[in-house]
């Protein structure tokens, strides 16, 4: 079998930019909602732009929730990006309360407008690496900049899941989280120039191991 990364297609945003980012790295990937493609992949990316509730609804409609749980059980590396990171958590308070995939314990909450200047955060911000040894961060200088677009952020229950922290206004939040074979970023590596591309390269290297 040829090495392959699956990008989960559940009709929630920017899949092509991730696909193209991987193409630059000469990595074949497939944008798919087919459980077979996802289960057979060497690594899986869960992207996402939009509202949490809609996203979970789409994942359920496409019967993708058990598939994602299965790949995690199988030990296939999983990379959640932006809303994809939030979906991995237990629950979100975006427009009501919604249960997430609960693969990393924690809540998704909104920026408190009294503590930040503007919501959503749209723009570049730096990430302070908590676990510099982490495979995702190899070859990337600590406090590098990445591109963010979001109003909600994750609050993991367990500190050991926090790989990177970002400060926005008076709030320090977890912009990179990880647990076993799962990693996730709140920012968009595919829009973060060379350090973001390096992150996908590190993920792919990890998938190859």
């Amino acid at each position, binding site marked *: 079998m040829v090495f392959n990364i699956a990008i989960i297609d559940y009709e929630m945003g920017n899949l092509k930019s991730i696909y193209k980012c991987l193409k630059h790295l000469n990595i074949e990937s497939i944008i798919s909602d087919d459980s077979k493609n996802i289960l057979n992949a060497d690594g899986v990316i869960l992207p996402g732009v939009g509202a949490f509730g809609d996203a979970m609804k789409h994942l359920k409609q496409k019967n993708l929730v058990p598939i994602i749980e299965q790949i995690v059980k199988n030990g296939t590396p999983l990379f959640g990006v932006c809303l994809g990171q939030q979906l991995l958590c237990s629950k979100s308070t975006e427009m009501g309360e919604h249960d997430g995939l609960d693969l990393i314990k924690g809540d998704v909450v909104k920026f408190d407008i009294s503590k930040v200047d503007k919501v959503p955060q749209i723009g570049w911000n730096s990430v302070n690496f908590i676990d510099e040894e982490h495979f995702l961060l190899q070859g990337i200088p600590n406090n590098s900049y990445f591109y963010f677009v979001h109003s909600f952020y994750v609050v993991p229950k367990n500190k050991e899941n926090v790989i990177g922290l970002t400060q926005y206004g008076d709030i320090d939040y977890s912009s990179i989280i990880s647990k076993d074979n799962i990693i996730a970023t709140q920012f968009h590596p595919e829009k973060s120039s*060379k350090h973001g591309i390096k992150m996908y390269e590190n993920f792919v290297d990890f998938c190859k191991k």
Partner: protein
Amino acid sequence: MTDYKKIVPCLDVKNGRVVKGIQFVNLRDAGDPVKFGQYYEEEGADELVFLDITATVEKRKTVVELVKKVADGVSIPFAVGGGISSLEDAQAILGAGADKVSLNSAAVRNPPVLEEISKEFGSERVICAIDGNRVYVDSEENASDKTLFKIGDKYCWFDVMTHSGTKSTGMDAIQWALKVKELGVGEILPTSKTYDGTKDGYDLEMTRGIAEATKLPVTASGGAGTLQHILEAFTIGKASAALAASIFHFREISIKECKKYCAKNGITMRL
């Protein structure tokens, strides 16, 4: 407070090619938008704006082609403006890989289109570009329904212009900015038609007026000629981003030195 200010080069594109006599000596293809995008990404640009000035019926097709190519070759966010007038236009461009769309004349003609697009794609992907022209009046009574700014012993207000800044609407730019915010726009790009091309500096009153009234991220545009002008967009104009075209294209100022200069003067920049 971590609020990184942005430097944004703007590229004019016609039929898929960069126009306006840009001089890049070491680029083999002097009109390739992707090459320009990559060059500016390397230079440290925080975002790019592509302004499409194609005026043919095939327009949408050529823009979508352009967006696909740029999205393929550039790994920083980019916005596309120029002739976007419907939800379908926005869908095509965002679907092809653009991060944001920017509307200008079409929004004036048909304001609800802003609401349609921002509901469908989110406020953070919709920019309203506002071309503003200074109109001076001697006393406050002469323009009592306008948002007036005191300039020396005179007053001025900002007239919203359409059709590349050639047609006056008589609409107050500050009030229009507040209106488009209500319609869900997440970002405003005011271009000074008074200063555009002069290199005398941005219209800081207009920039600041819109930033303070709307509290939205504002990109200063039109008139940048020096490092000092760019710095002032942030310090005086309260802008979140500074856009420029010719000073970057003609390499009068490099994006790198621009960011260094702003950082040295206390502005938080991604270096």
